[in-house]
């Protein structure tokens, strides 16, 4: 029992010593931040000084700032242990109150930890007049506090170099913020790899506030030298609570209503959705030129750290037999700039175009394996090895060009059999003629043979729909279709409304009759004129009253028309003329014609 007790005490002592040792060796850092960079005179902001890695209490020396008062609001401490590393963090909080509107800067705050002295960065903020903060300022200020983008540190780069970058979008959990787009890169001369639609998500606490953090791991690559100003932004929407107007009768007596509480603002209040653009601070991506000295001949722009492996199969071949050469390049960097390695072919080898594949590493897209496969053929049996291949790249950490060579691969080449030799000897056809072209043309590399008929020649390569005859036919058929539709429509209309056709026929008949009357007036033929007048009246009224025109008499007219109608008068005149052979002068005929025309046209 005593042994156990000694052991437990020893262990506790060891753990305590370990923690103390870790504390004592931990790096101390000091950071200062203010909760609002702009706030009105009647409000206050929280100044937080965070001391990380200190084992003892730190002494804070706040500078004097004119028209600014600091009120201590205590301190909070936090100890975390991750993978055995113990980290302590103490936050000292102060309320910052302004006495006068204006722009202020808190000079670096001195922090003394044991015998060491540290300082924060200067902190800028603005105090606006009471209630005079503009809406835009309010929105901008609040938006910067509510949602923002942080980007990992950017160093200098070379053109084409792939730089891993972490983009973190911070969204204050107290507000409902929705993001509608992926972050985009603003700026020229730099390209960003396409972002994943499934970023990692976590929570972080900053200045005592909890943020929802969305993280993208991506890469940036500069495409031209120079200092490129860049930033990141994404679109989103923010639900902003609207202050309710209390209508309570108590408020008019200067007392606050029971419901005049922010709790009920959340519960009953309206929300307004605002489209917002969440941005990162302005950054500079510096791209420096690659050294122009000692550039290898086969350098294709690859930057990073690569390894080269070359293998071949089979290693025992006959002349003319193909060998598959496999080149594997592993490591990290801009694999897109790595091209197939030059094979020193010469007269002894025949080479074919290589194919390439790239398998990115799951952990990061700029790590992986690029594989080239190439078919090579030995032309003579004096070859004993596959020559060494060279990969050149620029190492950004060493800041120098590196050329890696593969080891030569031994080959056992035997003299070719007759069949194999045939493969590499060009076939010389004997008597070429047109008929032989299709049958006897050597089928080089398995291509389909030549065509023996030239076919119809044309002067331009146009698809069918661009040929004039096609366009003309389409236009003609479209016109024909429209005409057919119009004709069919009129046909249907006539069937539905037969009175339209009858009316049209009546109108045409009247026009014909009146034209004949006019001719008779011109010819001064009184008898024929009167007979035509009678016929015109009968035709017109026969259609209207659906009677045979010849059967209409003055009795019918008296029944259908008014007693003093001009038509009855003229009709009686025509009857008298039949029995009494009355004659009319040309003027009388003209007058009668006009009267009859006017009357019949008025008769619907």
């Amino acid at each position, binding site marked *: 029992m005593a042994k156990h007790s000694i052991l437990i005490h020893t262990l506790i002592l060891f753990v305590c010593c370990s923690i103390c040792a870790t504390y004592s060796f931990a790096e101390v850092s000091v950071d200062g931040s203010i909760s609002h960079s702009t706030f009105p005179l009647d409000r206050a902001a929280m100044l937080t000084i965070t001391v990380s890695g200190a084992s003892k209490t730190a002494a804070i020396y706040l500078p004097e700032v004119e028209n600014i008062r600091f009120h201590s609001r205590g301190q909070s401490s936090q100890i975390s242990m991750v993978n055995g590393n113990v980290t302590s963090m103490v936050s000292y909080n102060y309320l910052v109150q302004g006495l006068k509107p204006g722009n202020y800067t808190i000079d670096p705050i001195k922090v003394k930890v044991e015998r060491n002295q540290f300082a924060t960065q200067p902190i800028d903020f603005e105090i606006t007049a009471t209630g005079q903060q503009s809406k835009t300022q309010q929105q901008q200020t609040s938006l910067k506090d509510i949602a923002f983008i942080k980007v990992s540190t950017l160093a200098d780069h070379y*053109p*084409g170099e792939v730089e891993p970058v972490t983009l973190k979008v911070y969204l204050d959990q107290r507000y409902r913020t929705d993001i509608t787009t992926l972050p985009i890169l603003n700026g020229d001369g730099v390209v960003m790899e396409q972002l994943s639609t499934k970023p990692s998500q976590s929570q972080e606490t900053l200045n005592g506030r909890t943020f929802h953090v969305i993280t993208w791991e991506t890469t940036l690559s500069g*495409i*031209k*030298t120079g200092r490129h100003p860049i930033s990141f932004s994404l679109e989103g929407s923010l639900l902003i609570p609207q202050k309710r107007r209390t209508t309570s009768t108590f408020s008019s007596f200067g007392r606050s209503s029971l419901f005049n509480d922010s709790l009920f603002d959340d519960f009953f209040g309206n929300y307004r959705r605002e489209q917002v653009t969440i941005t990162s601070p302005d950054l500079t991506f510096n791209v420096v030129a690659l050294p122009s000295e000692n550039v290898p001949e086969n350098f*294709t*722009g690859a930057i990073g750290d690569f390894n080269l492996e070359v293998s071949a199969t089979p290693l025992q071949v006959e002349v003319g037999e193909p060998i598959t050469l496999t080149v594997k390049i592993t490591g990290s960097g801009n694999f*897109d*700039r790595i*091209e197939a390695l030059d094979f020193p072919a010469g007269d002894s080898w025949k080479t*074919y*175009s*290589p*194919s390439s594949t790239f398998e990115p590493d799951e952990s990061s897209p700029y790590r992986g394996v690029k594989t080239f496969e190439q078919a090579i053929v030995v032309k003579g049996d004096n070859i004993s090895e596959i020559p060494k291949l060279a990969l050149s790249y620029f190492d950004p950490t060493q800041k120098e060009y590196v050329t890696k060579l593969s080891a030569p691969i031994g080959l056992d080449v035997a003299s070719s059999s007759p069949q194999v030799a045939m493969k590499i000897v*060009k*076939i*010389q*056809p004997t008597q*070429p*003629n*047109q008929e*032989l*072209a299709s049958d*006897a*043309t*050597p089928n*080089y*590399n*398995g*291509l*389909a*043979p*030549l*065509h*023996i*008929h*030239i*076919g*119809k*020649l*044309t*002067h*331009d*390569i*146009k*698809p*069918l*729909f661009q040929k004039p005859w*096609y366009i003309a*036919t*389409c236009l003609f*058929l*479209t016109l*024909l*279709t429209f005409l*057919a*539709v119009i*004709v*069919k429509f009129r*046909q249907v209309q006539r069937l539905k409304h037969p009175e339209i056709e009858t009316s049209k026929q009546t109108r045409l008949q009247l026009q014909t009759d009146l034209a004949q009357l006019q001719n008779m007036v011109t010819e001064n033929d009184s008898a024929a004129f009167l007979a035509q007048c009678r016929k015109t009246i009968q035709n017109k009224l026969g259609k209207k009253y659906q009677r045979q025109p010849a059967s209409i008499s003055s009795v019918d007219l008296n029944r259908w028309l008014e007693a003093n109608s001009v038509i009855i008068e003229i009709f009686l005149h025509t009857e008298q003329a039949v029995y009494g052979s009355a004659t009319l002068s040309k003027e009388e005929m003209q007058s009668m014609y006009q009267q009859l025309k006017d009357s019949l046209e008025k008769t619907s």
Partner: protein
Amino acid sequence: MKTRCRRFLIIFLLILILPLQLIAASGQEVGILFEQGNQAYSKGDFDSAILSFEEITSQHGLSAPLLFNLANSYTQKGNIGQAVLNYKRAEILAPTDPDIEGNLEKIRKENGLFQKELTGLEKAIGFLTINEWSAVFLITLLGLSLFLLAAIRFSYKRTTHIAVFFFSAVLMTVSIAGTYLRYQTINPSVVITNDAKLLISPFESATSTGSIQEGRLVYPQNHHGNYTLVQDGTGRKGWLAASKIEAVRK
């Protein structure tokens, strides 16, 4: 009088016959050149074959067999860019020719000119060639106009009218969409040299963003001086010297 008439007749006949003789002579010349090209190819003299075929294309016109033979000659010479260009041209004139399709596929495979995986829509559109889609539109339009003409003379049921209009509208819409989408794929340019590099700006001294393989299809988007802004099948964009590419459609 008779003599004068005879002279007029002779001149008239000469005027009538001369162009026909010129056409016949031209046809004979084309035939000879074509045969010379085929013979040179058979002998393995691909340079001479290319010269003969190119002479026909520049002076007399184009045809699918001619462009196919020219493309075969370029393939044998190892000029993959020109080979792809001429196979693509031949493909427009004879979209269903299996020889053109087979040879094009073969040189693509052998030279690593892999094409991107087709989407479902692209596969569906690729079911018919551009000319077949155009023909579907024309036949549908012809059928519709004939039906309407017949409807003037004969009376059909209302449901028959609705069915004919509906199917015609669907067929015409689909065929127009098919023609348009197929046209997008037959109108690219081809990289014809093996040293083409994509540049970030249309200037000789501009930084390169990578090389682009000979025989690759690119889609021109903009022009500036002697440079063309292109996008390849993988979405890469950059400026290429105009001399490095040639449009499939002249």
